[in-house]
């Protein structure tokens, strides 16, 4: 799969897909989208990069081990639910707040933190499986 065209296009395609995945993640706030589907898009971006340029550059590019990313996501999701202990509501209750940001009111919530956690879990877990399979392909 290491053709010149693919190798030239892959970095741009990957960055575009990661950007799109973050868009889908944030869009999931109120519209179709969300952490799971966003995470899948990002993971396939890394898989494409891995197919084009080899597994080692991907590992260098994401810096952390994919499983560590997944673990951080799990931690984030778990903590997002715990926050409601401070307002005496049950685990995973959604808490909302609005912040003023450049003239817009932006709704923030623990649900969003949870969703970001899901995104990271999916990115980490799927990337680590994909990279493991791609690595084996070569030897």
């Amino acid at each position, binding site marked *: 799969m290491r053709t010149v065209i693919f190798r030239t296009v892959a970095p741009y395609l990957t960055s575009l897909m990661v950007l799109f995945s973050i868009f889908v993640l944030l869009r999931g706030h109120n519209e179709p989208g969300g952490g799971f589907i966003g995470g899948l898009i990002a993971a396939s971006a890394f898989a494409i990069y891995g197919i084009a340029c080899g597994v080692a550059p991907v590992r260098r590019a994401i810096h952390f081990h994919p499983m560590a990313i997944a*673990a951080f996501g*799990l931690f984030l999701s*778990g903590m997002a639910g715990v926050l*409601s202990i401070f*307002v005496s*509501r*049950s685990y*995973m209750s959604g808490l909302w*707040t*609005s912040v003023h940001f450049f003239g817009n009111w932006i709704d923030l919530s623990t649900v969003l933190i949870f969703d970001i956690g899901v995104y990271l879990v999916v990115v980490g877990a799927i990337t680590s499986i994909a990279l493991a399979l791609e690595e084996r392909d070569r030897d």
Partner: protein
Amino acid sequence: MAITSEPLKDLSVAMVTEPVTMAQWLLIAPVVWCLLVGAVLLMLRKHTWLQPLIAIPALAVLCLLDGLLLAHVMVSGPLTMTMGSWLPPFGISFTTDSLGALFALTSALVALAAGVFGRTDVDDTGRRYGFYPFVLLMMAGVSGAFLTGDIFNLYVWFEVLLIASFGLLVLGSERAQLDGGAKYAFLNLIATTLFLVATGYLYGLFGTLNMADIIVKAPELRSSAPLMTLVTLYLLAFGMKAAAFPVNFWLPASYHTPRLVVSALFAGLLTKVGIYALLRTLVMLFPFERTGLADIIAIVAAATMLSGVIGALAQNDIRRSLGFLIISGIGVMLAGLALGSAAGLSGTVFYAVHSMVVMAALYFAVGLAARINGGFTLSAGGGIYQAHAGLAFVTLALFFSVAGLPPFSGLWPKVILVKASLDVGAWWLAAAILVTGILTTVTVGRIWALAYWRPAPVDDLTRSASEHDAEPPQPVRLPRGAIAALAGLLLLTTAFGVWPEPLIRLSQDAAIGLLDPSAYVLSVFPGEVPR
């Protein structure tokens, strides 16, 4: 940044409005704690020296949380917390009574012992593969399964613990592990899929997945819905998970392949989750259908215990023998399920607690013995008594316990179960339990005589050498952490044996809670009139 939660409309019809107490948080705490610590450990996977330092205190905290939960449930009855503040049955409820809390506490104690034992059993490679994170994630699954009050959520926790157990099983990726792991993984996949099928049908019939809601609705649907099919599917799925007779061949194929501490954890926890799920579904949710299936369960129980112990007799590898002994213990637990009386169920609960502790301890003991003479086979075994008399006696005590001899914890549940079988005239079930006990004694007696008591077999060269300078064998030093873990579990089984009243009372409490779940229902739906 103030946290506001302003409802647009009157949400009291859909959401829990009264504040949640700390006691209710105790219900979710074991699961969340395990998940969070597991995640942290997974992030720190490269720092192998740090792993046990975090994991062991974390498991101790888990024991504390489960202990507090059990104490709270015993004092003030079943406890419920519904996720996301939605009213049940719309939100996912975590509900526990003394059964769930007791099992959760015992599993946490076993996991703590395994964590301590693993410090010396799992090397750096195993730690880098993620032994401790997987243990914590598996405990999240196990605790979640014991504490949840929603049947689909139970499925999810089953999967969580199953995926973590896959990771533990192939830790190190040796050939035998891959072989055993493949069989374990595929057969467990079928079992959980059957569980999912049954749950899908259940949702189609009831329109709800909340266990308390199902208890309320089951009597109305009894005349019209094919509940018997549903319950039989559950029996098959959970029977497979619990390793009941015709569907248990994944267990002896895989349990001897992983590292010993992993085998110990699996032996202690996984099959008992299946038993717990059987108790919850068959006894608490569908007692009427269970009565219809009682004969089948009784036959399965007798077949499981006898085939298990005969399998154990036929093995040369001690670990495989122990695997079959787990199966035979499952048969004894199923006997209580078949009887369905308060006495029988309390025997099952007691036996499950006993089995969790003793089976894990037995694997620890066998692992330590293998460290002395380097093998698990009976034909080449021996010499443990010479090398380390203390370990030989500890193992003998555990063998007594698993065979059901006094003064250890195996005696009482068997007494309760035999008496409960005779009470309903099921003499053949009582006979099966007793025969299993005798055959277990034979099995473990032979293991002890061959692998522990007799002198180490020496080949001719070393024999001629040792006859000249008849030097007594040096006593072997065993790692202190491993001994502490083993001693802790031994202490538990002895304590249950010589002072069984608290545990008997607790199991009776759990059995009565299963047979009459009105307190359980009331905790989920305050004000609901139970059946």
